[in-house]
């Protein structure tokens, strides 16, 4: 069956077009490198398969995701190519198109008219390039598809085709490693490559310029720097603006709107639906064991997490707004200076911000890094960003102990995650993951109006995915946790046999390890073990262990009689441990595929060690504060800081002296 590949420069709207053609819901955004792998789906409108490929500037790949595209294009020689270009940067976009034509591919040129201040004669362009050309405006997708149907039936006559091997050789001479590997050429990059490359691209651009002149391509108003950029990119304002945006998102998600919706949903699920359903089961004389499973295992466990749906959805909605607007590229520009010092680049910002949503998707976006080391490093850092699944833990435990001050505690936890990620990156710079050569060349997308339709669709998608996760993994796990908590090793119901449950035995075996962290109860330890599968399960497990509904969970963890209970110090230590201790199973699976088993194991061990040390530190700090007061603790910390700084300074200066002596 026929197949159409959607190819084009990054951020030209390929995934949006793919979604329109196939009715799929592939993630789109106003940042280059959102699509990192290919997606194939059947299009009923075109009656063929359509493939959405990651963006690329030319057929010389510069990152892993570009290699995916080039691989696909070169290995599917008979597929039609739909080359999507935007009229704002048509000159650069045509560079890729001319290469595709040169390879003899059947190409249809689609011009996305994002800029109205540009004139172009499409007919002349089609004649000159010998390809079918069609334009795409934001509102005329239906007309466009009709046009495409007609074009798709006809084959282009290719007259620019050159020998494929000659094309590869040309690229290899330009110093492109990808084609060198393909042709098994091992020579080193020489001065000759630079001259050849410059000539090759300059000749192409000269051809393109002549074509565009012939087609009356005129830019009536240049892109320039927008008024918003003058404020957002101001060197003194950019960081405060970013912090203000983050704080606003936290406030709306965790408190005002998010909390209101969450509290009402919790009331609806547990106090109305849950209570009535359990009552119904009692009236129908269902066995106690089953009632207990439904009440404690399902309504307490799963219900607790469902009530966080509004907060999770709000967080994803804000992330989508940031992504759509084009702000993330600006942020990459502002933060590159700081990230360079820890061996990262501004490009990592996208992965790190996405980490606030979901670590699994974030680690996949690391593919758009320019070299392998940067990709592995960025992926390894993504789990330190506090993902949305940890949100219920902070809301429940933090809310029980810190009340309205919890906003500060949550903000501090998010900041701690970022700091640890940056320190980890600094540490990885000392390993073989040290960045070879730091480059940061990135295109700035124009600001886009936030599309309400896009935001709602994305928000709905994240809500569906959250509910599906709850309905599958979390429901199953909550039942397993309840069974393990209520069954002994001899498979008898513990309430009747009086024996210890399986989970209690396992939890008690491991609990001494967590004594220095302040939460040595078997319930807390078991919750962490269950949380490795999905972080949401930590809260549902606590609700199951304490045998309470989510509205009573906050009171139960304060009460010393509960299975899982905390003091303010141990609660804080518990939250820090939860923030850092281990990526969830799906992230680990992605890690294994993307960065290999060795680095996946490194991630598990290093995160556990870091979480253990920092939790212990937090617990000790809180204990000291409880005993000696806030002022004494602060003074002690300052003194400790000065001692540490002096020690580092002393050892550094000693090494320098030694070095100088040696050098002399």
């Amino acid at each position, binding site marked *: 069956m026929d197949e159409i590949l959607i190819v084009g420069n990054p951020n030209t709207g390929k995934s949006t077009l793919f979604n329109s053609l196939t009715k799929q819901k592939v993630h789109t955004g106003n940042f280059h490198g959102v699509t990192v792998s290919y997606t194939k789906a059947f299009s009923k409108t075109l009656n063929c398969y359509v493939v959405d490929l990651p963006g690329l*500037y*030319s057929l*010389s790949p*510069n990152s892993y995701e570009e290699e995916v595209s080039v691989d696909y294009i070169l290995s599917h020689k008979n597929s039609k190519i739909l080359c999507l270009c935007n009229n*704002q*940067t048509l*000159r*650069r976009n045509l*560079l890729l198109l001319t290469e595709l034509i040169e390879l003899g591919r059947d190409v249809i040129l689609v011009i996305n008219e994002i800029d109205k201040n540009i004139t172009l004669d499409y007919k002349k362009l089609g004649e000159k390039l010998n390809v079918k050309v069609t334009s795409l405006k934001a509102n005329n997708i239906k007309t466009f598809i009709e046009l495409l149907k007609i074009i798709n039936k006809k084959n282009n006559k290719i007259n620019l085709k050159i020998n494929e091997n000659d094309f590869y050789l040309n690229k290899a001479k*330009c*110093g*492109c*490693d990808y084609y060198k590997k393909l042709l098994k050429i091992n020579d080193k*990059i020489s*001065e000759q*490559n*630079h001259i050849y*490359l*410059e000539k090759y*691209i*300059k000749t192409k*651009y000269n051809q393109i310029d002549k074509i565009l002149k012939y087609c009356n391509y005129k*830019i009536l108003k*240049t*892109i*320039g*720097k927008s008024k918003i*950029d003058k404020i957002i*990119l101001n*060197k*003194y304002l*950019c*960081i405060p603006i970013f912090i203000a945006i983050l704080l606003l998102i936290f406030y709306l998600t965790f408190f005002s709107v998010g909390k209101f919706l969450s509290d009402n949903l919790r009331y609806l699920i547990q106090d109305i639906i849950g209570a009535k359903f359990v009552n119904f089961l009692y009236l129908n004389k269902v066995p106690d064991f089953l009632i207990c499973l439904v009440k404690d295992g399902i309504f307490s466990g799963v219900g607790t997490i469902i009530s966080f749906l509004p907060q999770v959805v709000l967080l994803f909605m804000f992330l989508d707004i940031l992504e759509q607007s084009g702000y993330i*590229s600006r942020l*990459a*520009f*502002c933060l*590159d*200076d700081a990230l*360079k010092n820890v061996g990262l680049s*501004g490009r990592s910002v996208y992965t790190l911000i996405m980490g606030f949503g979901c670590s699994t998707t974030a680690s996949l976006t690391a593919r758009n890094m*320019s070299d392998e080391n940067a990709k592995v490093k960025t992926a390894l850092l993504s789990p330190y960003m506090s993902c949305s699944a940890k949100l219920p833990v902070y809301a429940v435990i933090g809310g029980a102990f810190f009340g309205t001050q919890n906003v500060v505690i949550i903000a501090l936890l998010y900041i701690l995650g970022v700091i640890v990620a940056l320190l980890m990156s600094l540490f990885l710079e000392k390993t073989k993951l040290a960045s070879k*050569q*730091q*480059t*940061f*060349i*990135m*295109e*700035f997308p124009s600001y886009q109006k936030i599309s309400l339709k896009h935001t709602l669709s994305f928000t709905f998608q994240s809500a569906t995915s959250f509910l599906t996760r709850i309905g599958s993994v979390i429901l199953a796990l909550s039942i397993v946790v309840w069974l393990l908590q209520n069954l002994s090793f001899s498979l008898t119901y513990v309430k009747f046999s009086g024996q210890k449950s399986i989970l209690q035995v396992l939890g008690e075996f491991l609990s001494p390890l967590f004594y220095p962290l302040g939460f040595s109860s078997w319930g807390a330890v078991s919750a962490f073990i269950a949380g490795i599968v999905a972080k949401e399960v930590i809260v549902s497990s606590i609700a199951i262990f304490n045998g309470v509904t989510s509205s009573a969970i906050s009171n139960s963890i304060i009460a010393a009689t509960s299975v899982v209970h905390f003091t303010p110090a141990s609660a804080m230590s518990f939250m820090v441990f939860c923030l850092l201790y281990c990526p969830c199973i799906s992230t680990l699976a992605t890690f294994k595929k993307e960065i290999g088993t060795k680095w996946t194991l490194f991630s598990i061990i290093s995160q556990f060690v870091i979480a253990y040390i920092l939790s212990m530190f937090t617990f000790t700090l809180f204990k000291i504060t409880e005993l000696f007061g806030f002022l004494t603790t602060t003074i002690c910390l300052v003194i400790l800081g000065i001692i540490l700084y002096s020690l580092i300074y002393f050892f550094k200066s000693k090494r320098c002296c030694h070095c100088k002596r040696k050098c002399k």
Partner: protein
Amino acid sequence: MKNFFLNEVIIGKEYTIANICNGIDIKTKTRLLEFGFFPGQKVCVYNKSLKKGVLLVEISNQMISLRKNEASCVVVYG
């Protein structure tokens, strides 16, 4: 006419690219050339980050951000 490196130019003033040095790796040079950084092209630096480590440049109706390292390989005059 006096030549400058792109990272040393006055913000907001238009310059013409004279040359791209060979001192950078070929991958970076490829990307710069693909973005249109080659002799004869007009270029204008619009902004610099706080530590002046990153530049925001307009070239061929596109805004590109690049580091000082990369910018120091682009020789301009004007």
